[in-house]
């Protein structure tokens, strides 16, 4: 079904279809950026394809790639045949693919989101503004070179001396996934934001490596041992009580 779409597109566009693939059953067609809107329009209008359902439009940033920085991805489906297809193109920083908002009106907001998050503008879009972030925001946060800990507050933060410490929700307070490293930061100035990202980037220690974390874990273990000892003591007394 979806394979038929790939074949139809290859037959119609010939050389202009750069690559096709069907990894994990997801059929994909890669075209050049100049053909982007034209292929999309064809998929919508062609009587065999009838891709009338716009699912999503998004991008992926590969800052290390020389040729073109972004992948732009369009997911569509046909409500008539049930076929699904993914259309991909490569976009250089500053290049403007043609808008799809005239083909599927759902693409309007999706393209605004791609502009907001990745900074890809769409040629001919009727309303190219940010959609999720505020106008004062500088940069595009889903680009990989956006600093991971950079916030751009609209209201200046209050000046209170102990504000950063409150509240100290560490592992001990039943919040293993919340800002778990504040103690590690106090202890060692470790600027780790999220352990998972730290490990992934190979820059930062994991929480469980840090001395502060080991201290916390030791404290928790001690408390649990103490509680279970107390619990056993009370159970014994209860058994004695029922025996009488």
């Amino acid at each position, binding site marked *: 079904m979806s394979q038929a779409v790939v074949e139809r597109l290859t037959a119609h566009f010939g050389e202009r279809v750069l690559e096709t693939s069907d990894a994990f059953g997801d059929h994909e067609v890669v075209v050049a950026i100049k053909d982007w809107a034209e292929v999309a329009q064809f998929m919508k209008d062609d009587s065999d394809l009838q891709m009338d359902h716009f699912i999503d439009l998004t991008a992926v940033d590969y800052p290390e790639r020389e040729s073109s920085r972004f992948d732009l991805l369009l997911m569509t489906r046909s409500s008539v045949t049930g076929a699904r297809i993914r259309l991909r193109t490569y976009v250089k920083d500053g290049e403007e693919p043609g808008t799809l908002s005239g083909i599927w009106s759902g693409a309007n907001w999706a393209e605004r989101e791609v502009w907001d998050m990745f900074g890809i503008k769409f040629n001919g879009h009727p309303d190219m503004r940010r959609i999720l972030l505020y106008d004062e925001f500088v940069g595009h946060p889903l680009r990989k070179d956006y600093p991971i*800990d950079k916030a*751009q507050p609209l*209201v200046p933060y*209050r000046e209170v001396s102990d504000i950063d410490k*409150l*509240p*100290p929700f560490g592992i001990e307070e039943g919040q293993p996934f919340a*800002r778990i490293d504040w103690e590690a930061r106090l202890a060692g100035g470790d600027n780790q934001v*999220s352990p998972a990202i730290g490990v992934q980037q190979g820059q930062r220690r994991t929480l469980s490596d840090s001395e502060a974390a080991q201290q916390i874990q030791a404290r928790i273990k001690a408390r649990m041992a103490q509680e279970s000892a107390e619990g056993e003591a009370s159970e014994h007394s209860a058994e004695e009580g029922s025996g009488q």
Partner: protein
Amino acid sequence: MGQLKVIDGGGEVAVTTRLSDLLQWARKWSLFQYPFVTACCGMEFMATAAPRYDIARFGAEAPRFSPRQSDVLWVVGTISQRQGPAVRRIWEQMADPKWVIAFGTCASCGGFYDNYTTIPGVDKVIPVDVYIPGCPPRPEAVLDALMLLQDKIQANDRKPIIVPPRLVPERAPGRTREGNS
């Protein structure tokens, strides 16, 4: 109440106290709340307000959707940077005396949203009186927070406080077909 003096006049009884104590006592039992509910914690807020946990027992059952009529601002859920000006403005519109409760980890410290979108704790924007940890907190913790706030109001104490965790209770005895085991 703070200082109470009972004067027994034989058949007639009079009670005296300080005016400020009386005022604080009246305030703490008639808290009008402004729920600023933005995320999943709202579910637990609803559970607390509903009959089973019944926040009305504490005189705090009346939500007011105008900040000008309310005493407590409940910040319930994740506050994004974009919402910062709104929550600040709502707080500014409330008449004194006013209190703020940060409900859940997100409102208290940003939770796991450690990135460009989220204010790392609403206390970065407005002063908070009581923090409730938990994602989301259980209604018991919410009621604990309300009682803590009442104590603070009575004592005229504006120092921020965190609701301490409760010990995990023993497992309740299971039920079998034959009856309680």
